[in-house]
């Protein structure tokens, strides 16, 4: 069995007036250390699927296995989740923000400061531990959010459009940082994005979803020659434009 296994996932949202099917029969396997992107038109249930993998709520039908273990309400595997905005707590210092996950999981307090410092060093912000989030720029804050996510040593990182609120330059820099960090720690990651370029630049596989209800439409393998490069260099690679065109056409055909 693969590291992350999705088995026939169905999901419906219920409201007082209707039941809406958002995901239909999703089966996917992702191996350890792989970087996979989910793209698709809005309403294809990408974020819903991510929340299910994160264990925020169970799917109406189907199973999720992480590292061979079935995901259930009382067996929450350690998952790192990065949101569209940093959602750093403004009343906590950067150091407290980075270690909040450890605090929640009640790991020993002594090691927190060391972990925080090492991670902040890793994301290129060695001297901000005692500052407050409002004193940092948007790109820096998202880097702190990355450090917070990594602090609990998660098995899988789920990235829900984490670069969409940033300016272009910060976005490119952060893409490189994230890919580099994940490679160092050999982390498995899933990225949800609207940006085809970002998906190609960062991942080894791109999963295209169709909407209403969300199903897996097509899976694109990114050639090894590209996925070995940093996201910034992938964008400069001659093969990049062709892959972009292929995915773009497929996305267009979904309407």
């Amino acid at each position, binding site marked *: 069995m693969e590291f992350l296994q999705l088995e026939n996932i169905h999901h419906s949202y219920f409201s007082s007036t209707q039941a809406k099917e958002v995901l239909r029969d999703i089966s996917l396997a992702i191996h350890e250390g792989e970087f996979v992107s989910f793209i698709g038109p809005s309403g294809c249930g990408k974020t819903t699927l991510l929340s299910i993998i994160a264990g925020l709520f169970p799917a109406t039908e189907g199973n999720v296995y992480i590292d061979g273990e079935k995901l259930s309400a009382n067996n929450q595997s*350690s*998952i790192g989740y990065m949101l569209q905005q940093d959602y750093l*707590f*403004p*009343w906590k210092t950067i150091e407290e923000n980075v270690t909040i996950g450890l605090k929640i999981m009640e790991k020993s307090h002594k090691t927190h400061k060391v972990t925080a410092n090492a991670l902040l060093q890793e994301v290129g912000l060695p001297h901000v531990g005692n500052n*407050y989030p409002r004193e940092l720029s948007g790109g820096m804050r998202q880097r702190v959010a990355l450090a*917070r996510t990594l602090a609990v040593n998660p098995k899988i990182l789920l990235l829900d459009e984490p670069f969409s609120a940033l300016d272009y330059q910060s976005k490119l820099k952060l893409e490189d940082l994230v890919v580099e960090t994940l490679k160092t720690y050999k982390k498995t990651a899933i990225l949800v994005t609207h940006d085809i370029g970002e998906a190609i630049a960062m991942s080894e596989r791109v999963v295209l979803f169709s909407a209403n209800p969300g199903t897996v439409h097509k899976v694109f393998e990114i050639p090894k020659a590209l996925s070995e490069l940093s996201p910034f260099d992938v964008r400069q690679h001659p093969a990049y434009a062709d892959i972009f065109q292929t995915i773009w056409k497929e996305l267009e055909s979904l309407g």
Partner: protein
Amino acid sequence: MDNTLFKQYQQLLKREKRYVRVYQLIILLLFFGGWELLSRLEWIDRLIFSSPTHVWHTFIEKVSDGSLTLHVSVTLMETVIGFLAGTLLGTLIAIVLWWSPLLSKVLDPYLVILNAMPKVALGPILIVALGPGYFSIIAMGALISIIITTIVVYTAFKGVDPNYSKVLQTFGATRWQIFREVILPASFPTIISTLKVNVGLSWVGVIVGEFLVASKGLGYLIIYGFQVFNFNLVLMSLLIIAFFATIMYQVVELVEKTIIKNNG
């Protein structure tokens, strides 16, 4: 060049601040001076509106016979306890409602009714139930602010961006951890601003309570002065209430500044 401009700007700020202070002082002097003058010229009825000098004489007299200290401390004690009890209980009920969405749905119409009802109308019932003493007056001071605190704080709890809770949920946080780490600190600014409203409300509750039942306190002095037609006493009590209510408000503002400093 920049330096001189900056100095000029600082001087401008300082001058403006001085002007504001001067005008504030002028208004104060005009008020008391005008009051004294109109009273001496008998343009206003001296018996009803008194005059600053008469109020001052009454003040000195009451201070020297020691009775004023007693009245002031009784009222202050009642107000502070009523204020704290109202705010704490209101916040506590808000926490219970947040904890149990079902309970909050069930209780919703009752909260609306209780909020709409003028609490001072409950005064006579409180006095009968709790006895004519400090206890029913404190209850009045608390009761008047409980429901509004509950509603405002509960709304603040619900208004916290759910993505903050989501961050903690992905770490497997319990409901209590989410409350302690996110919901409560994110709601501190709202809780503090209800404190400011509650300061005023508690004074209303306590003074009305004293009108109804007390034999001590500033509210009692006002009613007593009214009954024996001693308006020197009434106006003196009013000025003292204004003074202490302002001080309490300032204290709350100080607390706000220290707590909110890093919450921005």
